């Protein structure tokens, strides 16, 4: 018995002391850099936006949770408000080809026009590289990065994890909360929440 307990103890010791390999963006840590093409044909690099707040919005036009935000006009309103205040807003499309939410550049441009959505750019990520870099689990998962390039929020768009349009007006929007609190020089009250929604449709996704 003692021998096994010893081995178990050593495993625990190893587990605790070994530097753990973390994937994904961590709140309080530097946002991983990326470079990619947007639906408007331009190339964007995250590091070029040091000095500005950056919002990342994981998108899938077929997801009912995303639909809730766009059909209510809430996401467009947020994009307009915050880009108007100098925030860079990247909509990120991480659906793999053949999966729900995968779009070509021109399809995305049509969608943006139809929905009157005005992010800074819609970034095409069909390989899921950016999605995996940030360990994005769902659409609409949201990440907020401060001007120093540090992740200050990672999680859900708001506190109502439903597909019901009626839940939008009464919801507490975590992106707004993070941006307002950080811009006012305060600590972000909710730096991370469970990012509810549809799973990001990566190439290996079965659900």
């Amino acid at each position, binding site marked *: 018995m003692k021998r096994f307990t010893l081995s178990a103890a050593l495993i625990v010791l190893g587990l605790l002391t070994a530097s753990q390999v973390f994937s994904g963006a961590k709140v309080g840590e530097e946002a991983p850099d990326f470079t990619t093409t947007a639906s408007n044909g331009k190339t964007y690099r995250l590091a070029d936006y040091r000095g500005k707040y950056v919002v990342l919005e994981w998108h899938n036009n077929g997801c009912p949770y995303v639909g809730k935000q766009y059909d209510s006009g809430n996401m467009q309103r947020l994009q307009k408000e915050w880009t108007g205040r100098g925030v860079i807003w990247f909509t990120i499309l991480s659906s793999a080809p053949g999966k729900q939410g995968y779009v070509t550049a021109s399809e995305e441009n049509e969608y943006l026009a139809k929905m009157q959505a005005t992010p800074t750019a819609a970034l095409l990520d069909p390989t899921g590289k950016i999605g995996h870099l940030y360990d994005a*689990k769902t659409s609409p998962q949201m990440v907020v990065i401060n001007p120093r390039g540090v992740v200050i929020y990672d999680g859900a768009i708001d506190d109502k994890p439903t597909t019901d349009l009626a839940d939008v007006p009464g919801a507490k929007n975590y992106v707004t909360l993070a941006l307002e609190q950080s811009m006012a020089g305060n600590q972000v009250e909710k730096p991370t929440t469970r990012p509810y929604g549809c799973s990001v449709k990566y190439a290996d996704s079965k659900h």
Partner: protein
Amino acid sequence: VAVEKVGSSEKSGKSGDGKWLGDWGKSFVELPGAKRFLRICGERVFQQPQAFSLTTRIAGDKPISRHSTDDSVAINRNTAGALCIKIGVHARKPTSQLIRAFTLGGTLLLWAISVPGTSTPIPHGTLELVAENQWIAEGHEFDLGLHFQLEKGWHIYWVNPGDSGEGPHVRWQLPTGITAGEIEWPTPRRLGSPSVVDFGYENAVMLIVPMHEEAGTTGAREAQLSAEVAVLVCREMCIPGKAHVSLTLPIKLQSAARDPRTSELFATTRKSLPRRPPTNWKFRVDDARGSFVLSAKLGKEIRQAMFFPLHESQVDNAARQELVPEPGGFWLTLRKSDQLLRPLERLEGVLVLPANRAYLIDVPVRVPSTMNNYHGPVMLAARFLEEGQLR
């Protein structure tokens, strides 16, 4: 059985969303027949016949293929077993004998098959409210079941859906004196991809809900039990659905008798519920910085175990659960969720051991006292050693 007859004409020149039935301008969608078809078969009928998918096999029998270039027949069985026949008739051509035969046969069958208990369509499946007993015995507990049946490959979620999705939400409408208890969730399965892990049920599941009738308060001979159920059904994509299910049961003084139609369903479902672990099993959870270490002493070595956290945002769902077998049990390392910002007091969840034996566990989390990052692991390891020596 639901039958919808679709007529179309080349004259109309419409395609895709053309909706006709006799009156060319009239939409199919609002017609009683179309509504009925949707309710029973979960499928809309308003397209022109060419739009049918001609998958026409009946329970493995010979396929019935398209009869002519213009008429078509689509036959499917919904999950509750109802036969759904769609017939497309091109108005330009005389209706074929086959089509006529089907229309007639279908209409006759419409009367012949009536499913006991009403199963309500949800996206890619059906939902039925069923009772274990034939009547409610006054002043007694009784069990109802929300029986979800889904098309192959579609799933719904556990109480903790995991990384994405959402479990079903039930809102009861019950007469005074009858109250609903908490849902008894069967052991879920791990679904999804390596990076996004969900917990749920594929194909079919029944959620048992214990009910209580307070003697003498209902003041009626029968009770109508209804529920509004909001459910997210997913496969490659997710579709939110809402269903209203209802059931009327007599209330009697005599003790209740099992309903033979549902007794097997309830018995099978109970076998899939996680149990309380035997009292001589010992569990322990240690907070080890980035992880929880769940250790178990069960009196036998365990080489395989899977833990499903009952609550969201406590354990990283996609992280590998490392198991270390021990002669008396095992150690299981569960990486903490990135969303877990405060120390956790108790870890609750379902532990699945080999042969699908599942146990509901609720273990206090031990936090190593006053340790800093450097000494902490050493002290924790030392304490485990100490415990081993004491034994």
